[in-house]
């Protein structure tokens, strides 16, 4: 009964406009900040000339940051560039002062003299990788040697911008020698740790508070650590509240995006078109600094064979350095790129074999008990056959696919299906080794219960789903559960809000804590329960060989997209979108529907209209005018369905859900266009121009 929907806990405040987002905070004597950025992709800074500024105005730069590095995985990227800039938009210094317009004027009046250095602007041109993994499972070389034929195919995917509607920003406060950062963010403790590191502050001297967050999608996972260091340094220097708000263009030009990717798949086939082995070269464009790219690449590589059991694989995966804006976290985290590639590859292999695409895919589809591509195990039920049957029933995929084979005339219909999975939670042993989540449950004397966790609600409904888990276990009304935006002075570190882990991992801690409270319930008394993460060991993960269980379990999806292409104009119109998902148990049906609807449209945007390019090192589509995300008129009603498949390791059987929903739409869309026009699609986004060029 947990899945039955309730009104979201934050509905009234968001609906009425009373919820406070970052730009809605007001402080007395608040200063404004504007960053002066590099205009060169790679250069030495020869001279910086500042304008004459009024009293009360000043700058913040590398000299104000004791350890001038942003701690992400490594501490590599400088907070403020020192001597050298490595991408257009890199922060050099920040102007701070009372009047916003004057601050902006001063920032525009800073003159920087550069000596330009050679710059690498394209993934294809980069020969330097900052991360490299290589692994092999099975006798790949032998199988390639005895192959009847070898097929090589290249797939590419572009940037994707998160395009949360609330731009990024942060406020820094400095009171009683303590730094407080308020921000629109996903991971309060990431930011706290970055500020402590850069500012050389003790843990009790840094506090991070999440403001109501207007969308994030991964974009507010890594980037706010940088914002935190900016405002921390400024607040400490000026001893006043300092607000740094990005405008939309600045946000789109300089914040992290989805990594563009390039895959070379070499497939060894026998005379019956059976796959013997795959040899894959996968490259992500990391941009100028590594950031989270290593873990994005890990997830990308783990998705290279999709939901298919390939007998032997050899993989080289690299993050390539370019002098462009650093790329980072975005819902799906490397997997959407791989799933596009593998789904298109399987489609193309099936066509060459003269076999129906779905039949070909089914032959290789993993089953419960099968090995994963890293010799881990799919130990829980895999219900893909039932999900595909449901997708067939709802969309009539196979019937339409057959019908659309031979079409004449200007308008041609097409239909495509994608089958995909998403590993739930952190890759490998990170939960056990690094995150070590702690969750606190407090029951007050009035018998209301507060959930104290560092996980954030950024729109995905976490306040509601967390509260439902606790309320259900305790058999108390959900109104009696309190949950506020995290403040690191109050909440323990239950880890970041990433990797589709919040419900499955932290929700489980809530469930266990609530069970303990229920079993030892003392009416009218204050009670506190602290719960720690417990790792269930499976096949140990070894990053050096890419072997073992990369994830405790998987969520699954089947998407179908039907389209009609105007072959004269290249326009593709949506005719139908179907999404079938297995997320274990949904903690709230309506919230899950919101994830399915929103995730699929974001995936369709990725596959169709969301084109972002780099021109001379600068992002060309750095505004909502130039970067096209779908509007209400670009979409149609979707048919979505969840299939129950409870997972024992998650609360009430729940698995990860948020990222899964974006993964399958782009490949299903690309396959639908391919079906309609009869030309192979190997790159996304499949824009109108792209369709015309294919025709």
């Amino acid at each position: 009964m947990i899945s039955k929907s309730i009104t979201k806990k934050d509905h009234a405040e968001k609906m009425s406009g009373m919820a406070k987002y970052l730009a809605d905070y007001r402080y007395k004597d608040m200063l404004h900040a504007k960053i002066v950025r590099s205009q060169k992709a790679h250069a030495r800074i020869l001279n910086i000339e500042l304008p004459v500024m009024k009293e009360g105005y000043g700058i913040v730069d590398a000299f104000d940051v004791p350890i001038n590095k942003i701690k992400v995985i490594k501490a590599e990227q400088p907070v403020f560039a020192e001597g050298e800039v490595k991408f257009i938009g890199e922060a050099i210094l920040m102007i701070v002062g009372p009047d916003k317009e004057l601050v902006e004027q001063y920032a525009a009046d800073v003159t920087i003299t550069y000596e330009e250095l050679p710059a690498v602007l394209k993934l294809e041109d980069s020969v330097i990788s900052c991360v490299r993994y290589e692994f092999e499972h099975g006798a790949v070389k032998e199988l390639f040697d005895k192959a009847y034929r070898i097929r090589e195919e290249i797939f590419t995917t572009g940037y994707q911008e998160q395009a949360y509607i609330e731009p990024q920003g942060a406020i820094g406060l400095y009171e009683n020698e303590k730094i407080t950062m308020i921000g629109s963010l996903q991971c309060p403790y990431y930011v706290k740790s970055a500020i402590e590191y850069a500012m050389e502050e003790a843990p009790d001297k840094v506090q991070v508070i999440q403001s109501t967050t207007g969308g994030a999608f991964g974009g507010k996972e890594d980037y706010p650590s940088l914002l935190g260091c900016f405002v921390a340094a400024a607040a400490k220097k000026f001893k006043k509240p300092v607000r740094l708000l990005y405008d939309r263009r600045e946000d789109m030009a300089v914040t992290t995006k989805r990594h563009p990717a390039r895959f070379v798949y070499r497939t060894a086939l026998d005379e019956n078109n059976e796959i013997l082995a795959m040899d894959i070269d996968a490259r992500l464009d990391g941009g100028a600094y590594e950031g989270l790219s290593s873990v994005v690449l890990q997830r990308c590589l783990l998705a290279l064979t999709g939901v298919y059991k390939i007998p032997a694989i050899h993989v080289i995966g690299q993050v390539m350095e370019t002098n462009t804006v650093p790329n980072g976290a975005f819902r799906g985290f490397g997997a959407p790129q791989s799933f596009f590639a593998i789904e298109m590859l399987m489609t193309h292999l099936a066509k060459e074999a003269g076999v129906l695409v779905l039949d070909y895919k089914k032959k290789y589809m993993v089953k419960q008990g099968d090995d994963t591509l890293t010799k881990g195990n799919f130990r829980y039920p895999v219900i893909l056959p039932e999900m595909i049957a449901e997708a067939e029933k709802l969309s009539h995929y196979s019937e339409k696919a057959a019908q659309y084979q031979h079409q004449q005339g200007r308008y041609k219909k097409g239909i495509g299906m994608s089958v995909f999975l998403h590993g739930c939670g952190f890759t490998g042993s990170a939960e056990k080794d690094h995150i070590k989540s702690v969750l606190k449950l407090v029951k007050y004397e009035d018998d209301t219960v507060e959930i104290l966790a560092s996980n954030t609600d950024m729109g995905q409904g976490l306040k509601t789903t967390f509260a439902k888990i606790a309320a259900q276990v305790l058999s108390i009304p959900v109104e009696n559960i309190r949950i506020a935006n995290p403040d690191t002075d109050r909440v323990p570190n239950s880890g970041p809000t990433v990797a589709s882990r919040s419900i499955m991992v932290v929700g489980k801690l809530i469930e266990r804590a609530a069970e303990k409270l229920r079993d030892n319930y003392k009416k009218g008394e204050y009670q506190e329960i602290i719960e720690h993460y417990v790792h269930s060991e499976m096949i140990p993960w070894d990053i050096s060989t890419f072997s073992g269980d990369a994830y405790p379990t998987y969520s699954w999806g089947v998407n179908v997209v039907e389209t009609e292409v105007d072959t004269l104009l290249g326009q593709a119109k949506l005719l139908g979108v179907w999404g079938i998902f297995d997320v274990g148990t949904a903690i709230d049906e309506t919230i899950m529907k919101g994830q399915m609807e929103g995730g699929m449209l974001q995936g369709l945007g990725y596959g169709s209209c969301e084109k972002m390019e780099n021109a001379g090192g600068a992002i060309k589509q750095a505004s909502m005018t130039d970067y096209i995300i779908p509007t209400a008129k670009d979409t149609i009603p979707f048919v979505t369905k969840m299939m129950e498949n409870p997972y024992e390791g998650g609360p009430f059987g729940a698995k990860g859900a948020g990222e899964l929903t974006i993964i399958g739409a782009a490949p299903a869309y690309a396959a639908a266009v391919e079906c309609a026009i009869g030309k192979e699609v190997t790159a996304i986004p499949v824009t109108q121009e792209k369709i015309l060029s294919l025709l």
Partner: protein
Amino acid sequence: MEFILNNKKVRYDGDPSRRLLDVLRDDFDMTEQKEGCREGECGACAVLLNKKSINSCITAIGSLEGQEVMTLEGYRETKQYKVLEEAFAKAGAVQCGFCIPGMIMAAESLLSENPNPSEADIREGIAGNLCRCTGYNMIIEGIQMAAKEGKGLW
């Protein structure tokens, strides 16, 4: 200059070229309307101007002499708002919430002109309001539900 803000006559004596959004947020402390792009593309800043939804980020305050402006602060006191609030809750139309103040303005603007909108009318009516969370369909359902539940109000 004077204009009507949430049914009350107000005075503004500053720079007439300033954006209505900035005047509302900074001078009148009405932070309900949000800034998403500052160039009229996203609709997060929408308010009602003479009952029609407009983007306040690209509207100069000086052009509003004697005009009627309504923000969410005023609108949330109406019966129509209550209907929308319930319908949006039921439909699960609100995720991050940042586009919602603008969406409500677009919905009111549409319903006041067309109390029985078709699905296509609704899509047209909110086409100027970007949402990145919901995929729009649950917002559209919310507006459809409100039109039905609030029959006679619009």
